[in-house]
């Protein structure tokens, strides 16, 4: 063999190899993928005298991940991927934890050598094989096919070993970097998912958003099922491909095999990751027919909160290695989703309790009153989990009289609810006994002081007494927004009346003012939730209320209160307070 210094035209000298090695180390430090080194590495190895080809493989046990060979007949030599099956015998070539270099006669290469065909095709008589360990059970080989059957130059073995060190180190750095990036992405994903989950208390919409967020960042497909009695009902599905969306939704709702898998997860097996043979029999996996054949891995995690399983979170992966690196992440995501569902469900239950309790603090229905059409409406504050303090009532009296009352206890919650009950029933009892409105306010004020109430109360009592073809309204006010009168002509007047808040001063006195209501007139009582409704631009509904009363008063008087509440709710940007309206319309023909 000629000294290496003399092979400058057909080979690489020791000095040149040293430069190339340095260049490879630099490239290895920058490469995003270890295969990026392949082109340069294979070419420079092929420049060694007597080399016909260089073939590289990557394995996981006996499973061949890929094989590529250098076709030196091309100029420049082309690196070609080939499709070859792995085999169990190849596992015998695995290097263990280090690097091993051996030589073989090409004729001796048998099972476990997918490279053999390619090496023989180029006429290689002998091969130098370098096998080296990569990460997570993977290993790789670099095989050089030689023109001569003689033992190879020891320098070639050394170069192969040095090259394998570059590849293994590059691979290790990339694996570490990817793991770091994967953790960063998972953390970012969990943060985003938490934001989505916190943004809404609508469980189904939240889960649809989470599924959409997860695809394709986490997997190609995502399903969420919730428990409804003994059943698992699909509530969200997302697939990376729009034309697979309906297939996925159908699979989520109707596939018996998938239902069984979900049930296994829910009934005790916890997080499942299924691939390969574990997918056989279902609509997913390489052996499946139809759309699901691209799926390689299925993960299922139970949604568990406070010891209860609420449903399942399922992912469909199209790549084998995608799910295996993230079981902890999948469990974390499922836990957060479960917590969000649990919170939303509890919130909804509590809100229903609030609405129900609020209804009990108001009259089930308004009494029938000859000559009048009464209407009322109540809107609970948005997202409120406490009972509000608005109340109203209508109490019929003798000789066609009727008393209307409306009021507001400052604040919300159990104490406000208790005072609301006290205020409404005290006023009602006194009014049923025929007490004048102003007197009932004095008595309620005294009762609040006697009960050492720590909250203020506003109230308005109107006694309507039939007079002629209309009514005389006696209006007594304790710190409440004055009512409005809409005349039959559409003109709107404010009833000027006032008085101290109830619960402020034990000796407070109250008087009443009189207003005549004719046929076609309406009297509108309301709480401050209506006047203080605020639009996005800062305007209050108070300025618009007379106009709304004039407009809405023209419609059917049976729904006047409801129309005014809707007008206020539509106007406001957010509903932080309850709204109550009580209206009385004087019939035109009595």
């Amino acid at each position, binding site marked *: 063999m000629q000294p290496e210094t003399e092979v400058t035209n057909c080979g690489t000298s020791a000095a040149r190899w040293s430069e190339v090695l340095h260049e490879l180390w630099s490239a290895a430090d920058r490469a995003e993928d270890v295969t990026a080194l392949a082109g340069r590495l294979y070419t420079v190895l092929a420049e060694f005298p007597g080399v016909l080809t260089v073939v590289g493989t990557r394995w996981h046990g006996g499973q061949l991940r890929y094989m590529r060979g250098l076709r030196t007949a091309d100029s420049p030599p082309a690196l070609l991927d080939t499709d070859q099956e792995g085999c169990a015998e190849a596992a015998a070539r695995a290097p263990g934890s280090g690097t091993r270099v051996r030589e073989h006669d090409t004729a001796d290469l048998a099972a476990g050598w997918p490279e053999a065909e390619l090496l023989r095709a180029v006429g290689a008589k002998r091969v130098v094989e370098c096998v080296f360990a990569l990460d997570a059970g993977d290993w790789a080989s670099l095989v050089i096919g030689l023109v001569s059957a003689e033992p190879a130059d020891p320098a070639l073995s050394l170069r192969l070993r040095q090259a394998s060190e570059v590849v293994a180190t590059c691979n290790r750095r990339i694996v570490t970097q990817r793991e770091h990036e994967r953790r960063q992405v998972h953390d970012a994903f969990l943060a985003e998912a938490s934001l*989505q989950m916190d943004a809404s208390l609508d469980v189904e919409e939240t889960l*649809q958003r989470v599924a959409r967020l997860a*695809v*394709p960042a986490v997997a190609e497909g995502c399903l969420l099922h919730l428990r409804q009695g003994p059943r698992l009902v699909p509530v969200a599905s*997302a697939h*990376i491909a*729009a034309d697979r969306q309906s297939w996925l939704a159908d699979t989520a709702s109707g596939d018996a095999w998938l239902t069984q898998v979900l049930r296994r997860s829910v009934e005790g097996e916890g997080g499942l990751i299924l691939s390969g043979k574990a997918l056989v029999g279902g609509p997913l996996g390489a052996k499946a027919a139809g759309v699901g054949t691209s799926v390689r891995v299925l993960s299922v995690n139970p949604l568990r909160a406070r010891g209860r399983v609420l449903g399942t979170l399922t992912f469909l992966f*199209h790549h084998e290695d995608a799910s295996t690196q993230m079981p902890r992440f999948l469990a974390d995501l499922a836990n957060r989703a479960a917590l969000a569902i649990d919170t939303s469900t509890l919130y909804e239950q509590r809100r229903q309790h609030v609405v129900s309790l609020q209804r009990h603090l108001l009259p089930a229905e308004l009494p029938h009153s000859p000559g009048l059409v009464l209407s009322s409406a109540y809107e609970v504050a948005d997202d409120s989990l406490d009972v509000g303090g608005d109340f109203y009532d209508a109490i019929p009296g003798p000789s066609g009289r009727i008393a209307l009352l409306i009021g507001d206890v400052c604040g919300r919650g159990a104490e406000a609810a208790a005072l609301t009950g006290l205020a409404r029933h005290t006023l009602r009892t006194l009014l049923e006994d025929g007490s004048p409105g102003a007197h009932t306010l004095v008595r309620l004020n005294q009762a609040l002081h006697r009960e050492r109430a720590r909250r203020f109360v506003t109230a308005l009592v109107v006694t309507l007494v039939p007079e002629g073809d209309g009514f005389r309204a006696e209006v007594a006010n304790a710190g409440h927004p004055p009512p409005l009168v809409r005349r039959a002509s559409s003109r709107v007047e404010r009833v000027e009346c006032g008085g101290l808040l109830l619960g402020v001063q034990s000796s407070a006195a109250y008087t009443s003012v009189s207003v005549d209501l004719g046929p076609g007139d309406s009297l509108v009582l309301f709480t401050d939730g209506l006047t203080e409704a605020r639009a996005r631009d800062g305007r209050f509904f108070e300025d618009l209320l007379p106009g709304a009363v004039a407009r809405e008063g023209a419609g059917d008087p049976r729904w006047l209160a409801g129309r005014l509440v809707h007008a206020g709710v539509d106007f406001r940007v957010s509903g932080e307070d309850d709204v109550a309206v009580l209206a009385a319309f004087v019939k035109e023909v009595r």
Partner: protein
Amino acid sequence: MNEVQQHHQRVDRRRILVVEPSAEDAKTIEQALSRTHPHLRLEFASREDGIAERLLAAPTLPGLVLLNVHLPEHQGHAVLRAIRSHPHLSEVTVVVFTPSTSPTEVDSCYQAGADSYVYKPVNFALFRTALKGAIDYWQDSASRIRGSLDGSCPTPR
């Protein structure tokens, strides 16, 4: 050779057209894709009008259009509808991205003909991962189709 076959030959799966009016966001996408898919050729369009006509006038079609659908005055949806209104562009995959996960928005994009919907989060690494997932899916999908057409199963490395 029918019209569809002629058109099939004009699709270059290594080309991606990114429709993103914001130069800063376009740069972000370039950074993300040049790292995850260095073999792809990226082209950028900063104006959303005339995209379909521009595609039809070019000698080859990009395999994929990455469209910021969250453009002012629903222009993103208009671009999507314009692309889908041309039968010659039926083989171009359209992946839309938007900062919304609203189910209504997803439905509306699918109805307008989007092939994939990608949520664009604030976090760069997460956005890059999502884009990679979408592009990998459609590249793999195109490989499978080619493999089934010519009897082989090429797997790009």
